[in-house]
């Protein structure tokens, strides 16, 4: 049996709309947050869980962490049913919500951790060892006596991670962990997650809108839309499927004009830069380069890396999300 098993999960929410004239009760509307979602995750995997807003990502995380009960379907994490065995289950998981804090606002973070230790019944020796490890990996050593409210957003997120991991959970849910962080903080955070995953074999399920998080961390992604699972597999394969165009930016030594660009590519000009968009399956990159050299003396030429955000946007569009 896999570490996380999810089978035909369904969840509907009932929303009451605003009452209109002549209606006695506010009309109800049912919204399917999850429809027949199934998947398996093995121990030690680092899985990205993506989809546009309202796709059902948070609902899945809430069900798997025991906050919500599904309408139908089965799920188990390490042999436990999250909503039925809540206390036993949550002892073994950690959850970080990017926009919500679980630490106490006005006290030094060390005090928050000490209280969490109490809540999770972590034995003293294990706590000391784990804290040593985490404070070093998350560079929290100097911040332990600082109240949460005085920390920067990046420091705060590191403290949150420490709080969610100090009871050494075997599964970690991350909901938008890098939201609002600066570049350095994001990199530190990603490095840490890789370290935690490799070091302890912690299974990590990551929901995010930041595609760089996904490319940096996850080899496997699941795509969710309108409550259905639309894709589950290798990230590279998913990208290849929608990676249908390349962009080249070129500069020439001299003014060039009226070049015969190949059929089917788009050319724009931005100051000295020529920006050429083409589909590699129609025009091989080698041919494209040859044509560009014929046009004049190339001073500089860059092939832009695939823009993951754009790919995903295209994918969402094509899947009609």
């Amino acid at each position, binding site marked *: 049996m896999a570490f996380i098993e999810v089978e035909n999960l369904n969840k509907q*929410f*009932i929303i009451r709309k605003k009452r209109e004239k002549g209606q006695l009760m506010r009309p109800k509307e049912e919204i399917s947050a999850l429809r027949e979602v199934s998947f398996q995750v093995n121990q030690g995997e680092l899985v990205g869980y993506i989809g546009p807003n309202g796709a059902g990502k948070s609902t899945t995380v*809430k069900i798997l*962490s*025991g*906050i*919500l*009960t599904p309408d139908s379907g089965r799920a188990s994490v390490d042999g436990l049913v999250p*909503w039925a065995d*809540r*206390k*036993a289950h*949550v*002892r073994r*998981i950690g*959850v970080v*919500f990017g926009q*919500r804090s*679980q630490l*106490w*606002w*006005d*006290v030094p973070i060390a*005090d*928050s951790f*000490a*209280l969490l230790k*109490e*809540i*999770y*019944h972590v034995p003293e020796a294990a706590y000391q060892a784990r804290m040593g490890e985490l404070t070093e990996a998350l560079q929290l050593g100097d911040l332990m006596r600082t*109240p949460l409210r005085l920390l920067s957003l990046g420091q705060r997120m590191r403290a949150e991670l420490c709080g969610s991991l100090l009871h050494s959970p075997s599964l970690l849910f991350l909901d938008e962990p890098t939201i609002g962080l600066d570049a350095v903080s994001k990199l530190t955070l990603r490095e840490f997650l890789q370290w935690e995953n490799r070091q302890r074999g912690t299974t990590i399920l990551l929901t995010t809108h930041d595609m760089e998080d996904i490319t940096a961390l996850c080899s496997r992604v699941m795509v969710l839309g309108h409550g259905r699972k639309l894709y589950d597999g290798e990230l590279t394969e998913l990208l290849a499927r929608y990676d249908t165009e390349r962009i080249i930016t070129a500069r020439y030594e001299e003014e060039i004009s009226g070049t015969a660009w190949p059929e089917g590519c788009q050319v724009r000009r931005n100051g000295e830069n020529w920006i050429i968009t083409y589909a590699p399956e129609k025009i091989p990159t080698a041919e494209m380069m040859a044509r560009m050299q014929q046009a004049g003396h190339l001073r500089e030429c860059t092939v832009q890396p695939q823009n993951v955000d754009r790919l995903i946007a295209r994918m969402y569009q094509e899947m009609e999300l």
Partner: protein
Amino acid sequence: MDTLRLYRKSMAMLLKSQMQYPASFLMQTLAQLVMESGELMAVILLVDRFDHLNQWTAGNLYFFFGLMSMTFYLTECFARGITGAFSGMVRSGQLDTLLLRPRGVLTQVLCSAVDPRRITCIAVGAFSFGLGSRLSGVAWTAGKALIILESVFCGFWLIMGLFMIEAILCIHSVKSIELANALTYGGRSACEYPIDTFPRPLRLLFTVIAPFALVMHVPAAWVLGKPLFGWPGWTAAVTPTAGIILFGIMYLLFQRAMRFYRSTGS
């Protein structure tokens, strides 16, 4: 035992965090003092004009007022999570965070708030209680003291149980919580006065549904040497347990409501 330990540690931390803003804390504590003194003054002014209420003398009335005031504000102080902070926790989603931890939800709710500003209200209550006891000439014995302690203890659970009605409604996302206020704050205002002040329907309400009369008035009247309805002495020791029973019922309903919450929150 373990739960108590967690509660103690949480309280220590919350106090520490409130002391981060000493000036504000002091100001609000004083404000509470003024407010509760105002309530007491109303009783004093009434006594000044009317002298007595049925068979109850001025001292008796201060005694009842003090008992209610001490008990109510002890609850507001130590069970702030239920008496004041709960609806906010539901709205802000903090309740979700509590569900992610391997402890009982109610325990964690109680561990997440404390209101030490109420200390001055409790002091006003204690003052009124002491004054009432002197004016009424109560000859204190160990038995009487125990009965009063029992009354305060059971009153704590009673008041918390009543506030849990509000919490339960809140979990079911019912908006009109003012109705629940009629039992909690309304109960406090009414039962500052002994129960025989009120006509039958109110008497029933505060005996059967929100049993302030059983928890506070029966033992207090016995201590004052004027047993309510002429009931025998042993009733003073037994009836306060009604508070615990009410809490027990509310606890079960709360647990049920939490299951409902988990299946509908968004």
